[in-house]
Structures are given as structure tokens and as C-alpha cells.
């Protein structure tokens, strides 16, 4: 199906850093270019989505000591789609994210980002460079750094050691940080240590950090866990506004939140896809009710 996959992705890996930096520089040159535009430009250069989908998982199996966390999981995410993934505890949702981001290697199956990038051959950092951003279940920010520095560190740039030593923030970089601060409603807290933020604010900061990476695909693992109703609503709006510019995959337990944002829903059960479709169809599926919704 993808005979060129391996070879092409190897090439991508070799020149990954330079390609990305060239794209990033381009963004800086163009001054006030918004994230959306920048994202599109990088998109053209790196990820081949000519056939529509941005993520293909095909027959992914992962076993831990004989327990099959993922069992022949096949899933396709379209470019620009907002996909919600639900499923009972232990259904394999987080393991799936681990496979996509390179933290866990699948025992069998293939994972492709676009047509050409074989995720199984890249490290976590290379996958992040290729354009996949991940928010963890537990908000993970740099607690000893200010909010500003958190965004600065996660900003799309050449992230090799020798570039980091003399790195300077250009005007356009500061503008992008300012825009993101505004978007995640932390503009007044830019100088505050991230460790001092509330739980909900940390969740938002982490989403802001992902956006600074200008990812093509965003993986959000329980983005509204521990949030107040008001914060949940605003996060839902944020997710909806991101779809289209980015492809977004949301894993969540909060059914109100899912109902608010859901277009396509995938239900995982025991490591593979149980049902897939619009929210109301999935909700009415007797198998889904049996394993998950009915309980």
C-alpha cells in the first residue's frame, strides 16, 4: 500500500531539523504571520496529506507482559478533523497516544503520519518536529519556568544544542508568544512561575505550549480533567476553533464535553475500535451501550 514509506521517512529523518528551521525562519521573516498561515506553510513542506488522512494506524498491537493493551487497532484521522475518542478505562486510549508519539513501539502494525512518515522509525523528539503535539493526561509544564519561558521553550525552532546557546527572540517570536498568551488567557500571568498556576491554567498553558510548536496534529489526553464547568466550556470552544487549522484528537471521559465538541466519535474497547461515527449514532449502538455508556 505504501511501498515508498520506509525510504522516504528515512530521508525525512535525516533532514528533519533543517527543513523545520527553514520553515520557522520563513515565518519569522513574514512578520505578523498568524499561526494558521504558518501552519499551512509548514504543512506543504513536511507532511504529505494529498490522499486526505493525516494519520493512519493499521493493525497496531502492543502487549505488556502478555496483556494486549492494543489489539489490531486500525484508525484513520483526516486532515483538519476533530476526532473524539472514548472508551472505558483500560481500552488502550493512552497507549494509542504513546504509539503515535513514539513513547511505545508497537509489536505489530504500522503507524504513518501523512503518506510518508513512518512513526515507528522516529524518536519522540523527531515526531514532535514532524508536527505531532501531545498534551498529557496530567498537566505537564515546566514548573520552575515562567509562563513566558514555557511558551518560549516549546516554540517551533531549530532545537539542536548549538542553536540553543545563542538563540534570541525575534520581534515576530514575541508577537506569537503574546498571541498565544492572549488565547490561553494567561497574558497577565506571563511572568508567573508555571508551578504556581491553578490546575485549569496549567492545562491551558500546556495547550498553549502545543500550539507554539505549530503542530499539524494535536493529541489531547483528557484536556478538561479537573477543570471547572466554566473552564470546560471555554476549552470546548478552543478545541472547536483549533479544528480545521490543526487535526485534533481528543481523548476524554467527560461526556458533556464530548457532546459539545463531537463530530466523529471513535469508541475503543479492549484495544481495538468498537464503533465509529457521529455522536448520536454511536450513542445508540447497543454494543457501545453495553461496554461503556450504559454503565
Amino acid at each position, binding site marked *: 500500500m505504501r511501498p515508498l514509506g520506509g525510504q522516504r521517512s528515512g530521508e525525512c529523518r535525516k533532514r528533519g531539523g533543517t527543513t523545520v528551521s527553514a520553515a520557522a525562519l520563513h515565518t519569522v521573516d513574514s512578520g505578523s504571520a498568524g499561526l494558521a498561515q504558518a501552519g499551512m506553510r509548514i504543512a506543504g513542506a513536511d507532511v504529505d496529506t494529498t490522499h486526505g488522512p493525516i494519520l493512519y494506524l493499521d493493525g497496531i498491537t502492543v502487549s505488556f507482559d502478555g496483556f494486549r493493551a492494543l489489539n489490531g487497532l486500525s484508525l484513520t484521522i483526516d486532515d483538519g478533523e476533530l476526532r473524539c475518542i472514548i472508551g472505558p478505562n483500560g481500552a488502550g486510549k493512552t497507549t494509542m497516544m504513546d504509539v503515535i508519539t513514539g513513547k511505545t513501539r508497537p509489536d505489530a502494525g504500522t503507524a504513518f503520519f501523512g503518506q510518508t512518515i513512518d512513526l515507528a522509525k522516529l524518536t519522540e523528539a523527531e515526531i514532535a518536529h514532524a508536527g505531532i503535539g501531545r498534551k498529557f493526561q496530567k498537566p505537564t509544564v515546566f514548573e520552575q519556568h515562567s509562563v513566558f519561558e514555557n511558551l518560549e521553550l516549546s516554540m517551533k525552532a531549530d532545537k539542536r544544542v548549538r542553536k*540553543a546557546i545563542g538563540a534570541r527572540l525575534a520581534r515576530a517570536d514575541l508577537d506569537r508568544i503574546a498571541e498565544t498568551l492572549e488565547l490561553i488567557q494567561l497574558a497577565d500571568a506571563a511572568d508567573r512561575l508555571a508551578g504556581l498556576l491553578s490546575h485549569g491554567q496549567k492545562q491551558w498553558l500546556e495547550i498553549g505550549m502545543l500550539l507554539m510548536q505549530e503542530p499539524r496534529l494535536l493529541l489531547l489526553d483528557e484536556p478538561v480533567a479537573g477543570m471547572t464547568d466554566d473552564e470546560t466550556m471555554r476549552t470546548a470552544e478552543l478545541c472547536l476553533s483549533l479544528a480545521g487549522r490543526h487535526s485534533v484528537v481528543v481523548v476524554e471521559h467527560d461526556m458533556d464535553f464530548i457532546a459539545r465538541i463531537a463530530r466523529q466519535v471513535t469508541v475503543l474497547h479492549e484495544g481495538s475500535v468498537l464503533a465509529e461515527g457521529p455522536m448520536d449514532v454511536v450513542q445508540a449502538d447497543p454494543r457501545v451501550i453495553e461496554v461503556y455508556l450504559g454503565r
Partner: protein
Amino acid sequence: MNAALPPQVATEFRRTLAAPERPLLTRGGWATFTVVAYVLLVLVPALNLLLPASHPLHVSDYVVTLAGKIMCYAIVALAMDLIWGYAGILSLGHGLFFALGGYAMGMYLMRSIGREGVYHSDLPDFMVFLDWKTYPWYWSFTDHFWYAAMLVVLVPGVLAFVFGYFAFRSRIKGVYFSIITQALTYAFMLLFFRNDTGFGGNNGFTDFKRILGYPIAAPGTRVALFVATGVALLGALLLARWIVTSKLGRVLTAIRDAESRVMFCGYSPLHYKLFVWTLSAVLCGIAGALYVPQVGIINPSEMSPANSIEIAIWTAVGGRGTLVGPMLGAFVVNGAKSWFTQAFPEYWLYFLGLLFILVTLFLPRGVIGLLRGRR
């Protein structure tokens, strides 16, 4: 994302958000730096060389040698702070890199003895004693100072790079990494204790006569070594400050606090850790090379596990992640050590242990935290 903002808001932010100031040293820092540089590089040498020993302001040779020795330790503490305080990697093997730098310099110093040894041979006394006829291959060219100086940097640097590459690539962290570094220095100590290794066995190198042609015990040479150590210390401090105030430094602390997030941001922690780890080892090697001509001896006990643990104690006592703190810690602990080991020689290790416990319990930010907190 622009669309989410009314244009005037975006413009306003463009005006207000400024890049944070990250000076190499603060204004007060530069003032202190200048004063310390003046004292180390001008005042102490002048007071030692120009004033007669009877003068009340005369700085004695003992003090110059002791201070020079402690400055070498301060460089090591600084190197330790880069890797432990900033990158969060506790090495319990830094004494090894210090000793290797010392041995590299020691080889040159041994060759400089010439035929003035006990056996009046071209070979060092310990080789004559072992009935060796020629220098082993790894002693080649060590009679050239610049070659030895290169070894001072390369031997600790290459060893740290190779060891670090495999350790960090295997994602060995925390206490496991500390234990492996401790084992590494112990293994090298056993290796260097053997006479066959060719580094003088348990006696190591001593009885140096001259360095770069100058008699090693002469007052002028001693002061020159003191000044060289001062320059190295101040230079190392500026280098370390440059690193920790750059984005590189912020990535290092981010690795310390949330390594997985750093990876998913697109950084490769391996390269960052390897860089700072190797740099830290090289700094230790340079410190060791400056240490040996001043104290006049290097032997495998420098590689003993306890020595490396002491380095960590200086750093903790001074205050991790502050650079200046660990340097201060090296002075405080070693100053106390030279007094204590004369007054109550048998109790020093108890005192050191107690100090470490007290600092950990009551001064988590070290002596520097105490000083800064009071202001």
C-alpha cells in the same frame, strides 16, 4: 489565531511584551566579579611576593597554596552544579575526571624531572623500580606541555562523552546513574592502583621538579599557578553563566523538571545532557591539571568514591543551581576541613556527614540561599 483577536489588541501586545532581560551578570554581580578578580589576580600575588614575611599584611605561602587548591575544588563544584543543579543529573564520579586531568598533567611533570630522580634515569623512578626499559606507548609525546594540556581536556572529555552517550541513550536516570558513576570511578581507582597500569601504582606521581622550565616550588611559580587557577575559575564562572542564561540553560532545567515534556516539545534530551555532561567533565579535568602542580602529588586516592561524594556535598552546602553557591560551598567546606583536620583529625568525617544532613534538612537552598534570604 489572529482571527480570535481584535487587531488593536494584537497591536497593543506587540508594544508591551518585551523579551525578558537575561544579563550575563547583574550590575552588582559584575562589581563583585571585578573585586574578586582584583583580589585574586593582583592583590594576593602582590602581598605574597612583594611584602616581607614579617609584614602584618603578608600573605603566607601556605595560604596561597591552600587558596589555590581550594579554587581548583571550586571549579569542580561549578562543574558539578552545571550537571546536578541545572540538568538534575547527580554524578558521584566527578572525582575521576578531576584525577584524569591531574594524571595527564602529572605525566608531563614526571617527564620534566629529567635525570634528577633517585635513580638518575630517563625514566621515572617507579618505572626503573619495575625494571621497565622504555616508556609505554601512551606516554608518548607527554614531554611536550601542549600535548599534555590537550590530554587534560581530551581524556576526561572523551571518556565522559562515550560513557554519557551510552548511559543517556539507555535513559539511565536518577540514583541508577549516580551508582554507575560511583562504580566507574571505583573501577578506575583499582586500575590505577596496579603498578602494571604504568601510572605509579598507589604512590602515583610526586617529587616534581619544574613546570615549563621553572622550578615548581619557587615563590614566583607558585603565584603564577595561583593566578592561572584564578583566571580559570573566573573564566569557568562566566562560561557557566553564559550557558545557564541562554536558552540552552533553560532547556537543561526543563529536562530536570519534566523530561518527557521536553522530548515531546521536539528537543532531544540526549544531546543536551551529553553536552553539559562532557563540558562538566572537561572543567573537572582542567581543575585537576591546575591542582597537581600546586599540591605536588597525584595518586589513585583522588578517584576514591568518597572524594566524588564530597564534591556533591560542596555543591549541596553552597546551594544547587546557583553557580556561585557551590563555589562558595567548596571554600566553606574545604576551609573548615583544613582547620578541622588539624584540630580534631578523627572527627572530620562525622562533621562532614552532620553538615550534609543539617544543610539538607534546614538549608535546602544552601548557604547562598541563607545569604540571599536575609537580604
